[in-house]
């Protein structure tokens, strides 16, 4: 463990990446504490509410930070989250202007529906960090399995090799549509699945190449000469080597999947509204005259996430490299 960690931290910035990623995960987990339309804690009319932003009590169903603040009694108090707006509330506080530039009310301005950009940015972390790992998990499984099967025998290779090539050339947009069509509506899972279905062939190709290389290596040939079954060879000799390629790909893959999700949502084929996604903010930036406060924050958020994932990926690669 400690040797792995040492090797991991040898990669430049790997620890920084891990810290960044940790921060982002924390932000995603505690998004409701960072940006919510309900307070962290409040005392309203002799009632004490703890974390109503998470528990969402029925008594406050039609309230938000602004309306509560307006009707505070003499002994009441309210502790609002750093960003006192939810990601879905349109025109919180009764302001009807849309596309407000950053101000003391809305630190990052509002979008074209009068929603707070900072709140949507924070909650967008959830989408990015849900879709990325989901997509990677699916294609890791698929890619490794198919890549390994290719290495096992010529017939398998012939058929699956073709499948890989078909997958490699398949247009992403149709896949997404077909997947959307099979269920009633677009959802996060389908976006993840679509990304996975377009990415697995790339991984399968890598695994296959690695596996073929390993199969041709002297120690595998020796094992086969000694009568080891192909499955055993694949599991004992090939998989460990191939899995390092897979793990490295996975670490980098999360960042790529986040970029992918951004692109899909930007084109209008990604996560459905009103979910707060960074790609959606970008498409709003396009549709509303390239307002800088809609363009810059999601770009920075995406870049930070991708950089963090790639830095961690570098570390993982270093960690898995054969010492020496």
């Amino acid at each position, binding site marked *: 463990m400690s040797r792995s960690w040492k090797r991991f931290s040898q990669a430049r910035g790997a620890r920084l990446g891990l810290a960044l990623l940790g921060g982002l995960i924390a932000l995603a987990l505690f998004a409701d504490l960072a940006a919510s339309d309900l307070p962290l804690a409040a005392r309203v009319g002799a009632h004490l509410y703890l974390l109503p932003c998470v528990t969402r009590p029925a008594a406050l*169903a*039609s309230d938000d930070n602004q309306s509560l603040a307006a009707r505070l009694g003499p002994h009441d108090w309210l502790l609002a989250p750093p960003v006192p707006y939810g990601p*879905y509330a*349109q*025109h919180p506080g009764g302001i*009807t202007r*849309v*596309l407000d530039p950053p101000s003391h009310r809305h630190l990052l301005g509002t979008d*074209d*529906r*009068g929603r707070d950009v900072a709140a949507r940015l924070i909650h967008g972390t959830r989408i990015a960090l849900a879709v990325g790992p989901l997509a990677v998990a699916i294609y890791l499984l698929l890619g490794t399995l198919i890549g390994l099967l290719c290495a096992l025998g010529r017939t398998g290779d012939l058929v699956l090799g073709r499948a890989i090539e078909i997958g490699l050339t398949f247009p992403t947009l149709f896949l997404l*549509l077909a997947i*959307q*069509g099979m269920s*009633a*509506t*677009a959802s996060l899972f389908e976006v993840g699945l679509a990304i996975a279905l377009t990415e697995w062939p790339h991984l399968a190709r890598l695994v296959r190449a690695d596996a073929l290389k390993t199969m041709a290596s002297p120690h595998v040939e020796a094992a086969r000469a000694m009568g080891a079954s192909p499955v055993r060879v694949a599991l004992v000799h090939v998989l460990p080597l191939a899995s390092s390629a897979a793990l490295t790909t996975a670490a980098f893959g999360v960042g790529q999947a986040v970029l992918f999700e951004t692109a899909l949502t930007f084109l*209008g*084929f990604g996560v*459905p*509204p*009103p979910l707060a996604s960074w790609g959606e903010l970008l498409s709003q930036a*396009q*549709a*509303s*005259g*390239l*307002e800088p406060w809609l363009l810059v924050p999601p770009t920075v958020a995406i870049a930070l996430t991708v950089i963090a994932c790639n830095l961690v990926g570098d570390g993982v690669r270093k960690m898995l490299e054969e010492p020496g």
Partner: protein
Amino acid sequence: MRPLARLICLTLLAVALSGCKHPPKPGGGPTVVVCGERGCPAESSPETPPRDGGTLVVHVEAEPAILCDLVEHDAWSRWIVENQVAETLLYQDPWSGAIGPRLAKSWELPAGRLILHLRPGVKWHDGQPFTSADVAFTLGRAQDPKVGADQRADLEPIAKIETPDPLTVVLTLGRPAPYLKQALAHISMLPEHAYRGLALRTAPASRAPIGTGPFSFVEWKPGERIVIARNDAYWGPRPHLDKIVFQIVRDKEVAYRLYRRGQLDVMRRLPPGRTVDEARRDPSLTGHRLFLWTPRAYFFIVWNTRKPPLDDARVRRALTELTDKRRFIQIGFDGHARPITGPYVPGTASYDSSIAPWPYDPNDAKRLLAEAGVKKLELTFLLTAGSRTVEQLATLLKEDFARAGVTLDVATVDWAVLLDRLRHHAFDASALQWTLSLEQDNYDMFDSTEADRGQNYGGFHSGAADALMDQIRVTVDDTARHGLERQLHRVLHDEQPYTFLSSPEVATLEAPRVHDLAPSMDGFSFAQAWVDPPKK
């Protein structure tokens, strides 16, 4: 009197709104032209008379697929072709609805027939004479249900088309046809010789249209522009413009920037992210004209009336009362829309202006739901990705409905899926927009027999409405028909097959060099427009 009063009110309101919020600075911002129900005020007469020559560049945000408005329902395909390149037999004023001559110089209405006398000496752009054979050909195609022309239903009463001589067309009517003349004012004549033996969609003349109009087709560069130029052999008054370039710019914001840089002369709509108030105060638009007008169109929520409990009118009314229409207009259209209560053009005799919109009243809605025995209601609202207004509506509905315990799930599907679900009645609710004719036939939206054929997506069926619509369709007398239409308006208001929302206002921008060009529901009439010479 009523429309005039309304126009004055509207103008006053606009002035008051603009006056109190943003005092107009001298020389800052565009000149705002507020159009009423009777059209846009004429340009205050400039010293100079119209000038001949010059090129007008018009922004087109969505490229038409083909330029044959008989089979193509896209708006720009119609606005580029109808009465610019190709012409109709009759002409209908886009605001007053008055019918006048065009390719038919006069007409007679003996019992059971309509006799059209065509204008002599009219030639197609390729030099061939325009004759009654072309009329018979075009009307025959328009009648064919396989073609799917917009006016097909209006032509249904025609039993026989005869052409006794090249300049006369006799239409024999099988039953009264109240909408026939209006239909003839919106069917562009097609040259038979260019379509003989060819499919309408794929014939070369559908990409390079041949007409008789004041402008002739020049070129179409896909993704870039469509160009038409003055037809010097035109039978009518010579247009002023040399050329009109329809510049295709998909990104509306980019188009807005091009417009402000002077590379586009006309923008039919402000980009969706821009508000009228913002444009009004924009000093870089000084000298431009900003037309504010309300197209004949309305937004509505369609309910699947076949699906319990939405088959109960009380439930639909409750949902209408749960919809905060004022807030939707404020948020969805920045206040620039007016509420509408029925499927007719407000201000016309068909529209019963005594009907007030159902109020926003969650308590009454709860009462109605309880009365209908609905305890728990979960609905799915279908929308297509990318339509901002509908997304805003869905978010509002979700909030509003939750107040009465109605759960609204929002499902995003693409256009193809939405259409499929609508046609097969596999939905709960969705929001759509219809455009209206001045004389609107609502048969195919609301008649029970149209649920599986026409556009009655909600499967609405009401004995009272059916009876009224059957009667309306055969009543040629305008006053009597309008009376029946007002009754139908009332029935639809009570039954709420749709939640009628609003008619959004449109802001059209024109550069200072453009003159005598007002927008309307039927596009622009470029024949009178003229431009200043380019500045050196």
